[in-house]
């Protein structure tokens, strides 16, 4: 079982893996080289999760509608199990995610994965979000007041 600090760190890692664009993730995964073999425990399999909102934004929950998800669990020969759940129907991405999640539990891999996969994935995600935010920012209304008539 992971201690609390490691768990926070591991959650952050998994959040980045899940939201990483599939081709970038596959490319960084291949570039790692010499990865330990893994065996499927479950999946990859496609299903759905029910997404929920809250009445008024912060009231009681309600069911908004479902979304497709893919989940996968893999096991390393050394025993670590990796679990992945992602939105959408990309089985290869889910498998890579689960494999990296399992490997990251081994000390000799964790730092490398953080450096060679998580860091570039996070940078790409933040760059993408920054562009969108700045494009939205350009549509901000700057109100000004016009003085009318004579005083």
């Amino acid at each position, binding site marked *: 079982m992971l201690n609390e600090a490691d*768990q926070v760190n591991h*959650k952050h890692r*998994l*959040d980045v893996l*899940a*939201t990483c664009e599939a081709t970038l993730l596959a490319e960084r995964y291949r570039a790692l080289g010499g990865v330990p073999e893994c065996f499927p425990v479950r999946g990859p399999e*496609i*299903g*759905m*999760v*029910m*997404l*929920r*909102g*809250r*009445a*008024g*934004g*912060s*009231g*009681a*929950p*309600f*069911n*908004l*509608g*479902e*979304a*497709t*998800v893919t*989940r996968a*669990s893999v096991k390393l020969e050394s025993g670590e*199990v990796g*679990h992945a*759940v*992602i*939105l*959408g*129907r990309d089985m290869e991405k889910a498998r890579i995610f689960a494999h990296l999640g399992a490997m990251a539990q081994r000390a000799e891999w964790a730092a490398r994965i953080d450096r060679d996969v998580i860091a570039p994935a996070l940078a790409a995600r933040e760059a993408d*979000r920054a*562009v*969108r*935010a*700045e*494009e*939205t*920012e*350009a*549509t*901000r*209304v700057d*109100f000004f007041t016009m003085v009318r008539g004579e005083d």
Partner: protein
Amino acid sequence: MYVAVKGGEAAIANAHRLMADRRRGDRAVPALTLEQITGQLSLAVDRVMAEGSLHDPDLAAMAVRQARGDLIEAIFLLRAYRTTLPRFGHARPIDTGAMRLERRVSATFKDIPGGQLLGPTFDYTHRLIDPAMAGDEPVEEGLRRQREADAAAPRVTDILDDQGLIEPDVFSDDEPADLTREPTEYPVGRDLRLQALARGDEGFLLALGYSTQRGYGRTHPFVGEIRIGTVDIEVEVPELGFAITIGSVRVTECQMVSQFKGSADTPPRFTRGYGLVFGQSERKAMAMSLVDRALRADEFDEQRLAPAQDEEFVLEHCDNVMATGFVEHLKLPHYVDFQAELDLLRTLRAEQEQATADDHDTLSEAAE
């Protein structure tokens, strides 16, 4: 006696083949790709996901293409597909307060923390068909502007709530009702109504929302806020023992602020209607929030007189897959049913003719 009639198999097969041919159209023109549909007809894809009640842009784009652009047919396809998938569980309720905004406007306050962000909107266009749409002229990228350091954009309703001027959200973590799992029994809770409205037909809800503005269940609405953007989806993974973000989806939220209600214990304050929809779809979110408010009539001791206030009427008719199924089934063979009606009509007519003849006889006898 019921006589089964067979036939039409060859005609059906040929009709489907012809439909596929017409759908493809001129073979000299390249076929539509999913990237073209999700990229350039994205609001159609959003509508299909919202009313198909399944978030998956590629599947929705395939459905749009398969349905030749008939969106209700595409919604039907997506609904049918979702019945083939297992449900792994549910996500944590999304936090629209933490949305990465792509558009955010308020019609109630000019100066709001976070400001007014117009985003990619049709508003303020002249609604003139642009000749450029007939060709493939280069299109400029959106302008970019550095964000202010503190760009926090709290929900407008939260700002009003801080001043006690609006009814507050009542937080709970109750398990919500699910109309896809249990049969609906009236009256229902607001949770189930919001689920039905979120997947309800945009046109039907638009008309009902419009009817409340025209006086059929008037609520004096103002758009407190519309926000469009992406929100993170988090799910608990039992094997991990904590929740992870599995991706993000774009949603549209509408907070409709309506006229006041007070009681002996509480001073008058604004009431609210809520709309939340997959994708960029503010017409639907606005219509949903108007109808949500109208359906809360009982909570505010309002008389239920208008269609938009009638929960069973709205919920039983807002689903376009159910509606189209029942309306469109009328065109399928009803030969036996109709034969029975025809027999009944002939009997009635024969009886009436007989009665007229008898009356005539009686009159003639009386005259003699």
